[in-house]
């Protein structure tokens, strides 16, 4: 090797060692700067993906559209009647809410965010959202969505990294590193729920493990051997860790396997990760974000 090559190799090694000793806050600053620089491209690529996926959607036939239109008209008429009743109910409900000081009793302070990019990192299941440092978002805050029509909330994941004033990366529940202490609803016996390593897997022991490539099932491990668990049971967060509060819906038991030492279960996630659009970050109680009060205080029923 020539002296010149050796000299450059030496410089390279020295610089590499110097870079590898960067402190977390230095890395954070560098990443924030880069993300700010790349943000237009990230947003544009997200919009392009949305446009491309909408083009790929199957176009319905005329008869299908006509059927849908008829069904929609029937539904509209039914809803008109319902709305008249609901006006009264809503009025009563608002009065009751005021009376109970519902706002103050609600345990959660929520920040509404929108998913701006669904592309995952190479080895991690992630999404990018449009709230960041300026919205007081910080790592390890839980991210949820309302769970269907009920008052409960389903866990999406947690903020992994705040990468800009208006963007953060969320590590999804389907990732192996997003671990949640979980329990079967109605029991106190707990296990650890997480996804699989990498975006997909084909564990030969469980052919039913994956519902789809984008929505893999989850694994609930380390449950006591004698735990009462059966397919259809609802799994919720136990709330014993520092990251996630209790009673967030995680999924439904698909299959339970009793082992020699413990019980494991395959869980179908409560969240459709393919369709995530608007999600909520659970902000610390002392955070005063600027979102409308109604959005911030989406209620999660603590004891169902």
């Amino acid at each position, binding site marked *: 090797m020539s002296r010149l090559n050796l000299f450059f190799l030496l410089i390279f090694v020295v610089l590499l060692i110097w870079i590898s000793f960067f402190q977390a806050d230095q*890395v954070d600053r*560098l990443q924030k700067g880069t993300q700010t620089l790349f943000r237009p491209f990230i947003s544009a690529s997200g919009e392009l993906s949305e446009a491309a996926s909408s083009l790929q959607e199957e176009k319905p036939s005329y008869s299908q559209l006509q059927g849908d239109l008829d069904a929609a008209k029937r539904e509209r008429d039914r809803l008109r009647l319902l709305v008249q009743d609901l006006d009264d109910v809503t009025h009563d409900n608002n009065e009751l809410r005021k009376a109970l000081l519902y706002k103050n009793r609600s345990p959660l302070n929520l920040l509404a965010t929108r998913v701006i990019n669904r592309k995952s990192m190479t080895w991690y299941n992630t999404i990018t959202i449009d709230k960041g440092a300026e919205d007081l978002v910080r790592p390890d805050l839980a991210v949820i969505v309302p769970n269907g029509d009920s008052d409960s909330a389903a866990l999406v994941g947690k903020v992994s990294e705040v990468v800009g004033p208006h963007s953060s990366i969320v590590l999804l529940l389907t990732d192996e590193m997003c*671990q949640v202490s979980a329990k079967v609803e109605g029991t106190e016996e707990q296990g650890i729920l997480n996804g699989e390593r990498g975006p997909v897997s084909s564990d030969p022991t469980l052919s039913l493990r994956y519902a789809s490539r984008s929505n893999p099932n989850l694994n609930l491990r380390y449950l006591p051997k004698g735990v009462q668990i059966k397919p259809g049971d609802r799994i919720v967060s136990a709330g014993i860790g520092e990251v996630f509060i209790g009673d967030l819906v995680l999924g439904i038991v698909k299959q339970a396997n009793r082992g020699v030492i413990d019980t494991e279960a395959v869980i179908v996630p409560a969240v459709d990760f393919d369709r995530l659009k608007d999600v909520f970050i659970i902000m610390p109680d002392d955070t005063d974000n600027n979102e409308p009060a109604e959005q911030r205080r989406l209620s999660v029923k603590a004891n169902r």
Partner: protein
Amino acid sequence: MVYWISILFIILVSFPLQEFAPDFTWAYHSKVLLVHSVFFAAAVSVPFPVMLIYALVAGFIWECRYHMPIGNLETAVSATQFELPFGFTILIFGLLGVFIQGVRPFFRQGRWGLPVLMVGVCTLLGLLIEYLVISFNRGGLFMSTDFWFKILMTALFSTLLAPFLLLLFSRIANLTGYQISLEGITRRYSYDGNDI
């Protein structure tokens, strides 16, 4: 010099373009790693010191953009975790850049078969090393069939991209009058195919 700067510019441009590279869900969530492909293809055509500079620049920007902190785990009390140390991609690019430099004589002779294949192989090796380090940190080696398909498909996309990149680089070399030198390996390969 003009050639080296041109290639550096292409490497920098590949970063914003990488944002538009789609995830192929039908191909086991593999993706086109454009930056990796451009770097490995560039490493075939430049001298060792320039390759190291490219590795440093490309690896550093990649880390700034894609380095992933995990945060706290519920199951363990720990500080914010970095599974792959910051700067790991620089190391990967440096190591594999040295590896792929061995096929420079083939590129110079216009025999692109092996360089094209090596771009894919280096992409595969890079991903494999990353995954092994992640697995080491997590304390368990789990290699499913889908995992192998994912990295093989990613490597395949890089291989498919490589001829176009090498063609682009050779055109730029012609335009700028750049001659690929074989310093460091000329003693072992005294015949470089240009004497006939």
